[in-house]
């Protein structure tokens, strides 16, 4: 193997790959990248896998000799990042990968190529084309609500449903629900619903740019493939049935608050400084003329802030939320104003963008903290 490539090109193509390298090291081979050089097509591929997610990136390079090498992802990343912005040469010599750039020279010991896990074949038929910007928006609007409790694995992924006229993503950790729905007509062979782990989706989220308009998807019984630009991502699917979360969505929450998102976020940020670091509780006393936002920490002190610039229709209510969950929701609200629809203090509150779009809807649900 003998390759020549511009350092910045290489860096741009492989920069997010390192996120896939498993942090808990179960198999040492997985800490490596598989590098393949194809001299006929003049392309190089880098592959990384944690056995559940596999990412392949393919990009042009000047390939003098083809070949395959397996090298430490960490070493390679550190080396590339440290090199000057010049041309880089990769030369495989027996068990060493030589990396040369200007006056620097590195020799990286290679691992046995045959030990690297088998890489799935990229599907070219039966692929669904989706709008990449909207797909990214779906991930952005939902991933934060995913659970990190491995005891209930189905909630550690994003529920994704495709029908002929809608695309839906939903995530929940039992305390909040994020739901994002796109209304459009797409050509799909059959309706599908899957639970996809966030790791692969977040990788996709990072690499989606404005200049490549579509992402190709291919769903197999136990995995899903995403193809975007020069990236191919294989992700496993979480087994199990996502429960009917819609039962939790209240239909008649009649206490409706509209308030500036920035105003509220800043106030909550200040008040949260005194919130308990066990419950993260921030309390809201809301009536037609004002909101009192308060927090108290028995051992440290308390905080209070009043907002009078609001629009509230409903009964006066006292409700408390975990401010970290509330912030996560406010962070994805797009409109300048946020709309809360509340029922009782012990019932979930709904959050919406105040400017509704025709082609998609986002709604968020948050369970309050029980007040004594």
């Amino acid at each position: 193997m003998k390759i020549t490539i511009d350092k910045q090109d290489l860096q741009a193509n492989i920069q997010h790959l390192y996120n896939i390298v498993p942090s808990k090291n179960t198999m040492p081979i997985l800490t490596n990248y598989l590098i393949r050089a194809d001299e006929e097509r003049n392309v190089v591929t880098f592959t990384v896998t944690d056995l559940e997610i596999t990412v392949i990136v393919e990009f042009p390079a000047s390939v003098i000799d083809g070949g395959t090498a397996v090298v430490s992802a960490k070493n390679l990343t550190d080396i590339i990042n440290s090199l000057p912005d010049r041309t880089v040469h990769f030369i495989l010599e027996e068990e060493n990968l030589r990396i040369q750039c200007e006056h620097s020279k590195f020799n990286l010991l290679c691992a046995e190529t045959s030990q690297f896990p088998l890489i799935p074949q990229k599907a070219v038929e039966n692929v669904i084309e989706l709008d990449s910007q909207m797909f990214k928006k779906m991930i952005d609007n939902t991933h934060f609500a995913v659970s990190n409790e491995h005891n209930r694995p189905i909630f550690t992924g994003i529920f994704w449903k495709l029908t002929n006229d809608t695309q839906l993503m939903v995530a929940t950790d039992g305390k909040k629900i994020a739901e994002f729905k796109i209304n459009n007509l797409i050509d799909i062979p059959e309706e599908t619903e899957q639970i996809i782990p966030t790791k692969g989706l977040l990788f996709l989220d990072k690499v989606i740019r404005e200049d490549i308009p579509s992402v190709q998807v291919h769903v197999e019984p136990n995995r899903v493939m995403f193809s975007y630009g020069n990236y191919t991502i294989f992700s496993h699917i979480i087994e199990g049935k996502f429960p009917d979360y819609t039962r939790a969505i209240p239909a008649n929450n009649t206490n409706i608050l509209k308030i500036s998102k920035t105003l509220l976020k800043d106030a909550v940020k200040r008040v949260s400084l005194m919130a308990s670091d066990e419950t993260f509780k921030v309390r809201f006393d809301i009536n037609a003329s004002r909101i009192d936002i308060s927090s108290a920490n028995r051992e440290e002190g308390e905080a209070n802030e009043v907002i009078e610039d609001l629009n509230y229709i409903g009964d006066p209510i006292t409700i408390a939320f975990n401010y970290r969950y509330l912030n996560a929701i406010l962070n994805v609200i797009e409109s300048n104003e946020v709309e809360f629809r509340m029922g009782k203090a012990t019932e979930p509150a709904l959050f919406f963008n105040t400017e509704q779009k025709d082609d998609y809807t986002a709604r968020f649900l948050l369970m309050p903290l029980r007040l004594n």
Partner: protein
Amino acid sequence: MSCRKIIHVDMDAFFAAVEMRDHPEYRGKPLIVGGKPDSRGVVSTCNYEARKYGIHSAMPSSQAYRLCPQALFVRGNFDAYREVSQQVREIFYQYTDLVEPVSIDEAYLDVTENIPGIASATEIARQIRARIREKTKLTASAGVSYCKFLAKVASDFNKPDGICVITPSQAEDFLAKLPVGKFHGIGKVSERKLRNLGIKTGADLKRWELKDLLKHFGKAGCYYYNIVRGIDDRPVRTSWTRKSIGMERTYATDVADMEEMKQSLEKIGKKLSDSMAKKGIRARTITLKIKYDNFQLNTRALSFPEPTRDAKIISHSAAKLLEKHLGTDRSVRLLGISMSHLHREEVSCDIQMIFDFFKKVPWKLDEGR
């Protein structure tokens, strides 16, 4: 805060002292309360005769035996200790309600305002020591100062059966001369680290700027900076809240068999669950403690979706952690489970509510990867 009067009372070689009081035949001989020398237990307390041989608490009993083969080893009678501790606390409460028990044998008292209205904290400490002696036939050491840290250092200073007073004007001198190892809150490792930096006494420590201490010791640096200046605003807290609950099992001989370890975890889980039910608590986090045959200690934790005290969930989760993290071909000396992030039943407020559909999805405990 600057004019507080704090007393730290510490019973002298408490368990050993109770044993000597109740068993005259033990007196005058090196006495160790704790594990038997041929067991893998540790010294829980020893008397001053035993300390002359270099024996101290937490030392393996086998090592204590090597240092002093003629020492008496006794198991200890915890009911007796608890009873004495109760008697001692009742004496404290005759002076103030602001009592913070630190453990079974020591407590802080804030006597700035006190029930008999005695102006001198030293006088209160003297009376308390006398009453303890009268009531329990045991001795206690007391430290008197204006903050908890100095009171603690003081009680340690004239131990056993002593009293030491550090007034605000003496504090600076006292701390300057004190070796850093004597500072409460500076352990062996930190002491070594300090000494390596040439910091042997309080005076040495005081020459260091806050930013440099922070650089070397992180958050602890701030603590060091303050205590060496006699600054410690921590109040005497009357209500002590439990942060975790745990149990462990030390094996008589090292165990390498996974099934045997799992059986122990099941037993520990059951006991913990019972104890948590009695105390009305549930926990969100479980931590498995593994001590290997070479004394290497590992802890691994996981969190539950909701607080629990279900014996099955505790044992299964611990077993999963064990399977996942036990080194291959390793023998284990000790296994323990500790439950933290506790939720109390009596406090029904501020509970994060959870969607019903979520709760109905059963936990998958065998999801070990």
